[in-house]
C-alpha cells in the first residue's frame, strides 16, 4: 500500500499578488459609486466618486490645486530639510561622541514626546503668524525623530568595523565618513520615512490654524462651506502626496542600500 506524503504547508510564505491591490481599490470605488448613486450615502456626508473627480477637474482648471499644493510642498520641503539637517548633525554627534551623547540625550528625551503642534502658538508669538512659524513647527517636529534615528543608527554600526578601522590606523574623520555614516544609513533612511509623514501631518495642522493657501487650509475651508466633494479631493491629494514621498524614499533606499 503506497500513499503519497501529504503536503503540509510552506510556512505561510508571502507571495506577490500584483493584481490584488488594484482589484481591492477598484472594488471599493465601485461600492462607493453604487452606494452614492443609490442614495445609501447622502452627498452631504460623502460625495460620489464622480463628483470628487469633477471637483479635481475644477480645481485644476482654476489653478487652485497647483496653488495649494505648491504652498504645502514648499513648507514641507523647507521645514523637513531644516529639521533633517539639524537633526542629522546632532544625532550623528550623539552617536559618535560620548560627551554629546551624555549632554544631549536627556534633553532630547524630554522634548521628543511633546506633540509639536502644541508649540505652534509659541512659534507664532516668536516668528509671527506667517510662514516662519509653520516652517519652524515642521522643522521642530522633524528634528527630534531624526536625532533619535541617527543616534540609534550609529549605535547599530558594528563596533568591530570601527575597531577594524582603528586597527588600520584610519584617522577619526575617515572612520566617521567611511564607516559610521554609511553603516548608519539604513537607520537614517528608515527615519526619513517617519519624518516625512510627521511633516505631512504638521503642515496640514499648521495650515488649518492660520493660512490662506495650502492643502490644510483648503480642507478646512471646504469643510466650513460643506463642499464635501472638494474636501475629499483635498484628502485624496494628501494621500497621493504621501504615496509619492514613500515611493521616492523607496527608490532612494534601493539605490543607496544596494549592498544589503
Amino acid at each position, binding site marked *: 500500500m503506497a500513499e503519497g506524503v501529504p503536503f503540509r504547508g510552506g510556512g505561510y510564505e508571502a507571495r506577490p499578488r500584483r493584481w490584488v491591490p488594484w482589484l481591492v481599490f477598484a472594488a471599493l470605488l465601485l461600492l462607493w459609486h453604487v452606494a452614492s448613486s443609490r442614495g445609501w450615502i447622502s452627498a452631504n456626508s460623502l460625495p460620489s466618486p464622480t463628483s470628487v473627480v469633477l471637483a479635481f477637474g475644477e480645481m485644476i482648471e482654476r489653478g487652485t490645486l497647483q496653488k495649494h499644493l505648491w504652498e504645502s510642498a514648499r513648507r514641507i520641503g523647507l521645514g523637513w530639510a531644516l529639521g533633517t539637517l539639524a537633526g542629522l548633525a546632532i544625532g550623528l554627534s550623539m552617536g559618535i561622541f560620548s560627551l554629546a551623547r551624555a549632554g544631549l540625550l536627556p534633553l532630547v528625551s524630554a522634548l521628543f514626546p511633546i506633540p509639536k503642534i502644541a508649540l505652534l502658538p509659541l512659534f507664532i508669538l516668536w516668528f509671527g503668524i506667517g510662514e516662519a512659524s509653520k516652517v519652524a513647527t515642521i522643522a521642530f517636529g522633524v528634528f527630534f525623530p531624526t536625532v533619535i534615528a541617527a543616534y540609534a543608527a550609529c549605535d547599530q554600526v558594528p563596533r568591530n568595523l570601527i575597531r577594524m578601522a*582603528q586597527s588600520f590606523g584610519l*584617522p577619526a574623520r*575617515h572612520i566617521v565618513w567611511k564607516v559610521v555614516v554609511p553603516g548608519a544609513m539604513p537607520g537614517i533612511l528608515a527615519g526619513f520615512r517617519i519624518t516625512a509623514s510627521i511633516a505631512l501631518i504638521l503642515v496640514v495642522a499648521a495650515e488649518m490654524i492660520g493660512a490662506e493657501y495650502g492643502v490644510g487650509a483648503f480642507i478646512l475651508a471646504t469643510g466650513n462651506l460643506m463642499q464635501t466633494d472638494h474636501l475629499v479631493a483635498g484628502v485624496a491629494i494628501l494621500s497621493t502626496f504621501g504615496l509619492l514621498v514613500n515611493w521616492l524614499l523607496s527608490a532612494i533606499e534601493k539605490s543607496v542600500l544596494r*549592498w*544589503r
Partner: protein
Amino acid sequence: MDIRIEGVTHRYDGLLVLDGIELAIGEGETVALVGPSGCGKSTLLGIVGGLLKPSAGRVVTAGAPRQDSLNPFTYVFQDFALLPWRTVQANVALALEHHPLSARQRQERVEEALALTGLGDFAQALPKQLSGGMRQRVGIARALVVRPAVLLLDEPLSALDAQTREILMEDLLSIWARERGTRLYVTHNLDEAARLADRVVVLSRRPGRIREIVAIDTPVATRGAAVIAGMRERLWRLIREEAREAEREVQHG
C-alpha cells in the same frame, strides 16, 4: 620585527583575565595561542595590536619593520570585519586610503594583494555575494596590502566550515611561504595550531597564564599528517581538563 610581551596583566571590571604573561616572539616566527574558552587569548592579541590597554605590563618591539610597511601590526578578524557597502577591491583599498600613495601605487598594491589571495576575479563583488571563505580571503588581502611586520590573526578560520577551513589553511601556508613576517595566531582549533605554527603557547584557564610553550621542530612545509596528529594530541592532553571545566563554567555562568 621581534616582539616581547612583558608582564602583561589584564582585568575586566576587576575580573583578572590575564596574569603576568611573558613571551618573546622572534622575527619571522608563527606563534599560535591556544587555551580553554575565556582564557584571554583574544584579549592578549588585542593588547599586542594596541586595541586594548593592559592593566599592567607592556609590549615592546625590537627592530624596524620593513620599509614599505604601512601598518606594522595588522589584524585578521574572526568575523572578517568587511564593510558590506564596499566592493572587494574597495574593502582592501580602505587600508591604504589614508596613506600618502599615488593612485597608481595604491592600485598596484591592491591588485597584488587580490592576486595573492586568489581574489583577482572578484574585485568588483560585494561581500554579500561571497562565501565565508572568500570573505575571509578579503580580510587577509586587506591585511597583506599594508605589508605588515606582524600579522595578528584572531580565530581567522573559526567562522568557516570544515572544508573551507582546510582550503584556507593550505592557502595561508602558501602565502606565508612567499611573504615574510611575524605572526601571532589565536585559535581554539588545535589542528590549526599544529599545522600552521612554529611554536604553540598554551594558556591556562582564566586567569590566563602561560602553561607551556610547545615548539614544533618540523617546518610547516614538510609537516606530515603524523606529526600534526601527534602534536594535536599532545596539545589536547594539555588543555583537556581545563577545557572541560571552562565549558561547565560558561554554561553555568
